[in-house]
């Protein structure tokens, strides 16, 4: 499969007073055409900044470096402002975490939807209007023609996020990045919207980078999964491989926190990984997870490389495959009783 997005050794540094916060610490991944990559990890591990760095939308204080950052044949590292503007919203679009505030309060939904298409493509207003209505219906908004004339404040959060999804689709992008698109929404509609996104991804054959906490949805829609911790990738592989055999202790921790339909009783207290994320200010030597890892041992404080099993399953841990698989047997057996 051809790679549509390639990221190598991406770093994002933010000056904090005299020090530097290393928010993204050398992550690498790629996305094939039409593939869904889900990115998971606790808050603050650098997921948003990674997506913003690719879009070229980092806050002005943040500094981005990378060995390689290619999108659809364009080198984003050396791309001019104009070139980036041609790509953004057109071939590469983004959906944000905050549906309530991501639409401009002063303009109608229709205006904002049509704008992106009229800006990038040489189409008539009528054509843009037609596509906007078509996409609003696609994302499950009823009375689309009437909604076009409404203002954001007249819509609920869920509807606004559907509008944002429709907006990201206006120009028929090759890749969509969605940064926790449902975190701010009512739980009852979260999965529904994520699944909608996945459906649209398949229908329009787009690449999708989905940042989410919803591991249940990840298990259902992801082709590949990337687990981030403290600005690094700690595990990456096909969804099947990662869910069946999570090779990094952090990934297992995340999975233990996940409710299992039919097994976890309602009201059952879910586990959470004890301990806190290390500060990202200054350098972190060795494994960043070691303060919270029950397998931590001598050597972890200097272990710093990605292992892989020869089948594109990567993990960043001192434990080799054999030892890990030993723990894995216990993990699978003890899921329900996991501590």
């Amino acid at each position, binding site marked *: 499969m051809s790679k549509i997005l390639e990221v190598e050794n991406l770093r994002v540094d933010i000056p904090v007073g005299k020090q530097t916060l290393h928010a993204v610490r050398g992550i690498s991944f790629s996305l094939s055409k039409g593939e869904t990559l889900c990115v998971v990890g606790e808050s603050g591990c650098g997921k948003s900044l990674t997506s913003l760095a690719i879009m070229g*939308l980092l806050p002005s204080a943040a500094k981005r470096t990378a060995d390689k950052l290619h999108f659809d044949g364009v080198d984003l590292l050396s791309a001019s402002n104009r070139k980036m503007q041609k790509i*953004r*919203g057109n071939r590469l679009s983004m959906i*944000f975490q905050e549906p309530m505030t*991501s639409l401009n*309060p002063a303009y109608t939904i229709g205006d904002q939807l049509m704008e992106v298409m009229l800006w990038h493509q040489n189409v008539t207003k009528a054509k843009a209007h037609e596509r906007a209505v078509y996409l609003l219906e696609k994302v499950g908004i009823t009375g689309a023609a009437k909604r076009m004339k409404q203002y954001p404040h007249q819509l609920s959060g869920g509807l606004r996020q559907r509008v*944002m999804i429709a907006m990201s689709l206006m120009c028929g992008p090759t890749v969509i990045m969605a940064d926790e698109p449902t975190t701010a929404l009512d739980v009852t509609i979260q999965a529904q919207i994520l699944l909608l996104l996945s459906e649209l991804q398949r229908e329009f054959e787009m690449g999708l980078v989905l940042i989410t906490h919803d591991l249940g949805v990840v298990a259902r829609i992801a082709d590949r999964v990337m687990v981030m911790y403290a600005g690094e990738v700690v595990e990456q592989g096909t969804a099947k491989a990662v869910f069946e055999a999570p090779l990094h202790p952090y990934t297992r921790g995340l999975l233990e926190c996940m409710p299992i339909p039919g097994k976890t009783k309602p009201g059952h207290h879910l586990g959470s990984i004890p301990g806190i994320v290390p500060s990202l200010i200054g350098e972190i030597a060795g494994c960043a997870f070691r303060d919270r890892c029950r397998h931590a041992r001598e050597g972890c404080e200097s272990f710093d490389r990605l292992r892989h099993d020869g089948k594109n399953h990567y993990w960043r841990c001192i434990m080799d495959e054999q030892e890990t698989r030993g723990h894995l047997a216990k993990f699978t057996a003890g899921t329900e009783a996991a501590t």
Partner: protein
Amino acid sequence: MIGYLSQRLALAFLVCLTVSLITFFLLTSSGDVVSAIAGEEATPEQIAALRRELGLDAHWTVRYLEWLGNALRGDFGNSLFFRETVADLIMHRLPNTLQLAGMSLAVMLSLSLPLGMLAAFRPNTWVDRLALSIAVMGQAMPNFWFGLILMVVFALNLGWLPPSGSGTNWHFILPAIALGYYATPPVMRLTRAGMIEVLGTDYIRTARAKGLSTTRVLFKHALRNAIIPVVALTAVQFGNMLGGSVVIETVFGIQGVGYLAWESITRLDVPVVQAIMILVAIAYITLVLVSDVLNAWLDPKIRK
């Protein structure tokens, strides 16, 4: 909307009424017009006769009600100084004041909006500081002083523009700059603050994520939202220009309402002063109403 508007109009009427009552009372107690008119040599009998003739012998409340009754019919009485009705007198002067205020407003907006936007776009840089210094200078100088400097430099030394009078449009340029520049700082600062706030919002990030150019993001998505509070302040500043042009009109000899007010105050021409006060109050109230309507038009959340 109709209910809201009629409520606002009723309130506006009450405010005008109060203003007229207060000015009437203040003017009555500020000095004896009659002895001023009669001159120092007049005998008490002559003064009393003149007082009766001018209808000023009744109690001030009685006179106020009489004045109010006439004013409501558009009759503000006669000037004590000119052989003209107050209404005619003001109507002749009003166009000059409106022209001056309109041009000052244009000067103010063409300074404060670009400066405020530039400053917001590059906050805490030399651009920001320069914009702020330009604005602060406008406020630090009394406007008559700045007006005199303009007059000396551009009219007397360079001879580019006429120094005083209101015969042609050229006459209005220097006073409009003086008045407009003075009103710039608060509007510029509010534009800057509004713009900085708006530029940090999520919808601006969305606009950039759509691949729009910086110009389009700024002018279509940011300005429209940042300008909402500026509209109200601009209305107030315009009111200040209308009501506060007394000094500038006097300095530049512009035959406007402000100049008339100043002349009438020095001559104790009470009916004229009274009418101008009411006029200024009405202008303020109208402007606030207009700014509310503009706000509603700009901000769909207020619109119903």
